[in-house]
């Protein structure tokens, strides 16, 4: 009997066109849009060499030394700072600057090198900092040679630029901004499971549909009926999530950092929570199905907003000022679980998130069963 209810419900759900659009097609479309919109996001932080020029005027020793330094930091390689062009005259350099081919140029015809730029910006600031550092080092060298020539041997240490801090990664995977949007998408699709829960319970409420009334008349307990329906809802929704994950990993080549089994576990926990949430909203509100759907959409969006999936940083504010709200927000728990998988090399926080999700699902399913068991109708 359970199998009959479960299998027919599953078939019915998989054939439902609106479900097909919203839980199968829509996430794939969103994933594709995210992919194209955020592909360049991770390359924003990468350094690009600065197009610059130096005017080859001034044959003094200082001018030649500066040009040599410039050429040395413009050599191709990991440490290349400038894409340097050498111009014969200032006019030629100004022409390049006007055409936007360079961000600035250095003149070496005066007593000390000077920088010419047309506007403010990051690259111009770097060029200015480079020049200032050069002049400072030059001054230091001259001072040392004049005042303490016996210390000249230690000049090498002045330019060694040794760093006493070391950058290490907390996890195997490099930090990336793009991945957060895909986490958000998966969390949103998990919460879309609430519509499965809503439909399952609505089809068991005599006051909402003739089908609900008809099923209430059968000799099957509501607990069995709702369990089979919700399980079918979870199955159908999990299938759509699997398709989404396969599309992200295999087609769009999104790197979730391996750990496929745990990604699936997170999706399943999120899916179960979403479905049971929809079931609870459906059973404890005395509204028509359209109104209940509106409630679900609003609550889902609110959860996603508070989880920082729309405005970055909101989740930290919520976690700081209303920690309970942060913990009971399923969207926050799903995304946090994904963050843990990607960035942490321990699983304590991850499994805590999964536990909280499953606990919420258990409480909501239990409440749904209690409400349904007591539900009788004054009118239908």
């Amino acid at each position, binding site marked *: 009997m359970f199998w*009959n209810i479960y299998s027919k419900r599953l078939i019915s759900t998989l054939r439902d066109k609106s479900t097909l659009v919203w839980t199968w097609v829509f996430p794939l479309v969103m994933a594709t849009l995210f992919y194209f919109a955020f592909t360049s996001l991770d390359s924003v932080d990468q350094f690009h060499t600065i197009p610059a020029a130096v005017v080859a005027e001034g044959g003094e020793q200082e001018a030649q030394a500066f040009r040599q330094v410039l050429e040395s930091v413009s050599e191709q390689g990991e440490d290349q700072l400038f894409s340097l062009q050498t111009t014969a005259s200032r006019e030629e350099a100004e022409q390049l600057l006007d055409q936007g081919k360079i961000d600035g140029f250095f003149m070496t015809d005066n007593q000390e090198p000077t920088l010419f730029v047309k506007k403010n910006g990051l690259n111009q600031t770097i060029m200015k900092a480079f020049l200032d550092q050069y002049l400072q080092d030059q001054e230091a060298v001259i001072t040392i040679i004049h005042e303490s020539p016996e210390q000249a041997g230690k000049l090498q240490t002045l330019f060694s630029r040794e760093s006493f801090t070391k950058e290490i990664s907390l996890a195997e995977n490099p930090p990336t901004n793009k991945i957060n949007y895909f986490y958000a998408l998966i969390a949103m699709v998990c919460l879309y499971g609430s519509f499965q829960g809503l439909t399952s319970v609505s089809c068991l409420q005599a006051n909402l549909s003739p089908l609900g009334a008809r099923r209430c008349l059968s000799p099957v307990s509501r607990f069995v009926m709702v369990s089979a329906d919700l399980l079918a809802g979870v199955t159908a929704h999990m299938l759509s999530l699997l398709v989404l994950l396969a599309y992200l990993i295999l087609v769009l080549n999104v790197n979730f950092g391996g750990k496929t089994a745990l990604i699936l576990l997170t999706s399943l926990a999120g899916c179960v929570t979403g479905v049971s949430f929809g079931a609870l909203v459906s059973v404890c509100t005395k509204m028509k199905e359209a109104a209940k759907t509106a409630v679900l959409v609003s609550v889902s969006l609110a959860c996603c907003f508070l989880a920082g999936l729309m405005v970055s940083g909101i989740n930290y504010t919520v976690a700081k000022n209303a920690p309970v709200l942060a913990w009971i927000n399923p969207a926050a728990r799903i995304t946090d679980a994904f963050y843990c998988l990607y960035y942490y090399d321990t699983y304590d926080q991850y499994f805590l998130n999964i536990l909280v999700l499953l606990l919420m699902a258990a409480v909501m399913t239990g409440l749904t069963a209690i409400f349904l068991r007591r539900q009788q109708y004054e009118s239908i």
Partner: protein
Amino acid sequence: MIQVKNLVKRYGNLLALDHFSLDVLDGEIFGLLGPNGSGKTTAINCMLSLLTYDKGEISLFGRPMSPTNYQNKQEIGVVMQNVAVFNELTVYENIDYFCGLYVPEKRRRRELVEQALDFAGLQEYRKFLPGKLSGGLLRRLNIACGVAHQPKLIFFDEPTVAVDPQSRNSILEGIRKLNQDGATIVYTSHYMEEVEQLCSRIMIMDHGKELNTGAPAELKSMIRGGEKVTVELPTLPPAVLENIRELEDVERADYNGLSLKAACRTGGHGLIQILDLLRKNHLGFGRVFSEPPTLNDVFLEITGRELRD
């Protein structure tokens, strides 16, 4: 089979069932006849424990009915007024689903589903989705889903609403067959012709109350009226109409500008008297109809208004 005693059901201030009582005997087709809003569906929903009620007792199969009395529910079939099927399941899958709620054994269920498909004439539509069926076929699917498990007691709540005459006859035939196979039927409708030809006993109800109960012939014998006469005629002077009303065997008469309608006394010669009077007054007339009293006349007699008002 069914015993309902002093059932009271209110929707806010509206009294939907007013000390409603009912006895349905084993093996009969019992008709609940009344206009829309008379309380037929409410009575059935209370009997099925779908609705709460304020007062009264309901027992089915000699056992009190409650939402968790699965023993009772196991033996009941319900064909609801609104079609209640899954739009995404085929005809076969829908019948199998609802039958499966009563019959867990798969092989037995397969037999029952095939029988239900035959019964409802849906064999050739077994792979169709409900959205592809006509209104009549959809109703037949609704019936097949309700009776596939071969219940002992079947409630039909206005199963022929919005159904074409051909499908209606097919549905009524099917109901008769179910009864012949041993099922007790409770049938509600506001179509008096259906109830009259189908039911062995009928309860006429209005405003949530029983007005009268009996076999169709018994109910018709309760009214004073005999045959109903309709005479088509283009004009009828008021004086002549008054003379017709004064005829010995005429109960009442009305003229609407096109035809004269008169209710005659039982056992009298109203039709002959009316036609004689018209001839004497040199009034030409067209077609003449005479029909025996119907349940509508019974309803009219009791309530002063027509069933379909």
